[in-house]
């Protein structure tokens, strides 16, 4: 039997995306938690960072949070765990965080400690070999099984770890763990399962803590919350003086960013929250009982992949003439035709977003037949080279000026240009993999490393 309870402090739901708030963090640290943990990744940020091997979070903010967490964890002599390092969990992001930890330790003259880390990137060659051996790489969320052509179009793949590499590194004595891409909940579940608590409660603990104060009210991100697990329940408490974890806020968070509030899939099984019971246990604390966990028959690991579509430029035009507003599609068709005459039908992409009509929602917009009195049109051109992307975009933008509408009164220029140029944007990527792959050993895609950090 484990100790009566363990307490987990989480200061941030996506470390680096915005800095943690220090007051509630220190308030939580003073209560002497048993672990300090935060997830640092998200696939919310689009496919660009994974594909281009960059972070969307500024290094200053990443360092700010890592520094606060490391100093507190070493002072309390409790483990610190970070999952999905640097937004994507790619290998370079893990290395970046490990180097930051070493640097912070050196600057503060911290006593020696052990750092463990693991990588999550999967070479395309490994996936290809399994496909050629007849293994299906199964599509999620309505996607077909992975085709070789889609794999070829992929620049970088990460596998999403379960609890396994975290448990293994804790077994090896790691004081600090920097994880590659992982399911958010498993960084909390791993130490709880390892300490002997029921899997269902351990994974639920992770679910409820992974976004920090998003499970509290009133709304306010980046504030610290503390979760406590026992053999029979999970309790979650807000640390900010004005925030509370209520039945409504905690249950509400169970739905957040998920297609269904009842199930959560991780490598190795499924958490079922259908019969969760929520009750207010004190003013700032909600108690949860009743989740269940079903181990899966085979272990399937989720793969995320991003592939470059091309270089990208952006143009912008405004439209005020009511006749032109009503015929904006003809203006766009004219500009598209000029691009087609120069570059042909394919080998590039040209996208128009018509703000003031359906720029935000596209085809999902119910009011697309009721445009405003003025429109803003954002033009995106994507092509294999910068030069071509620029020319596609400037043609697709400037030719709107020359569109030939039969009854337009203004014949000196069909659109307004706030800029007489197009602007280079980051290259365009797309999510090529949202699939699962079977593994025999849950550690086989996640090489482990351990080292001592000395002054």
């Amino acid at each position: 039997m484990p100790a009566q309870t363990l307490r987990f402090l989480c200061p941030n739901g996506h470390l680096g995306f915005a800095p943690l708030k220090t007051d509630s963090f220190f308030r939580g640290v003073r209560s002497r938690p048993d672990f300090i943990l935060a997830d640092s990744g998200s696939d919310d940020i689009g496919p660009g960072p994974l594909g281009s091997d960059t972070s969307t979070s500024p290094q200053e903010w990443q360092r700010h949070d890592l520094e606060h967490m490391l100093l507190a964890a070493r002072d309390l002599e409790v483990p610190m765990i970070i999952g999905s390092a640097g937004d994507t969990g790619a290998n370079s992001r893990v290395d970046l965080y490990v180097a930051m930890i070493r640097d912070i330790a050196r600057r503060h003259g911290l006593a020696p400690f052990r750092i463990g880390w693991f990588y999550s990137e999967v070479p395309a060659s490994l996936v290809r070999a399994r496909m050629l051996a007849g293994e299906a790489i199964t599509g999620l969320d309505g996607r077909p099984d992975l085709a070789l052509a889609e794999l070829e179009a992929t620049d970088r793949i990460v596998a999403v770890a379960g609890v396994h590499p975290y448990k293994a590194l804790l077994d090896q004595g790691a004081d600090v763990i920097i994880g590659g891409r992982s399911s958010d909940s498993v960084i909390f579940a791993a130490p709880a399962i390892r300490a002997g608590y029921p899997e269902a409660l351990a994974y639920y603990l992770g679910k409820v803590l992974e976004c920090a104060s998003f499970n509290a009210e009133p709304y306010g991100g980046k504030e610290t919350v503390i979760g406590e697990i026992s053999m029979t329940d999970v309790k979650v408490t807000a640390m900010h003086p004005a925030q509370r974890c209520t039945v409504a806020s905690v249950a509400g968070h169970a739905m957040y960013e998920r297609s269904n509030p009842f199930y959560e899939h991780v490598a190795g099984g499924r958490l079922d929250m259908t019969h969760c019971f929520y009750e207010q246990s004190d003013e700032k604390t909600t108690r949860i009982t009743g989740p269940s966990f079903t181990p899966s028959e085979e272990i399937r690991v989720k793969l995320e992949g991003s592939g470059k579509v091309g270089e990208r430029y952006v143009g912008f035009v405004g439209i005020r003439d009511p006749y032109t507003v009503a015929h904006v599609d003809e203006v766009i068709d004219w500009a598209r035709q000029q691009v087609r005459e120069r570059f042909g039908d394919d080998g590039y992409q040209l996208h128009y977003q018509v703000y003031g009509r359906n720029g935000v929602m596209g085809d999902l917009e119910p009011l697309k037949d009721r445009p405003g009195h003025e429109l803003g049109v954002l033009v995106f051109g994507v092509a294999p080279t910068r030069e071509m992307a620029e020319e596609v975009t400037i043609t697709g933008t400037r030719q709107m000026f020359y569109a030939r509408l039969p009854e337009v009164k203004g014949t000196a220029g069909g659109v307004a240009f706030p800029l007489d140029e197009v602007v280079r944007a980051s290259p365009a990527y797309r999510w090529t993999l949202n699939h699962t792959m079977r593994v025999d050993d849950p550690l086989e895609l996640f090489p482990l490393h351990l080292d001592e950090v000395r002054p």
Partner: protein
Amino acid sequence: MSVGVRRRLGELAKTVRSKNAGVDKITFDIIFSDRDTYELVKRSGVLTMASVAALYGIGEDRISDFVTFDPALAIKFTIYRPAPSGSPGDADIFGAQQYAPLLDIEVPID
């Protein structure tokens, strides 16, 4: 008792929001602050798979989940995105501004 009184969902709900659920889906949450209002809207039948599909101009096969979630006093549904988040041409990388049409749904309250 009044007859034919209707109120907008935007007035009745505490929270109406949309957000990515993974890279291929957008999920919508409609959350109420009290059980009576939640039950009223649930019973009213104005929020169904069919009504939501019609509002967004999509087939019901594009809706992956439609559930009511009593502990959170919430109605929740999830749709498949037209294209994965952040693909060229996607105007809402986080899926955060797709809920607005729900605000104007009229709910009979008598």
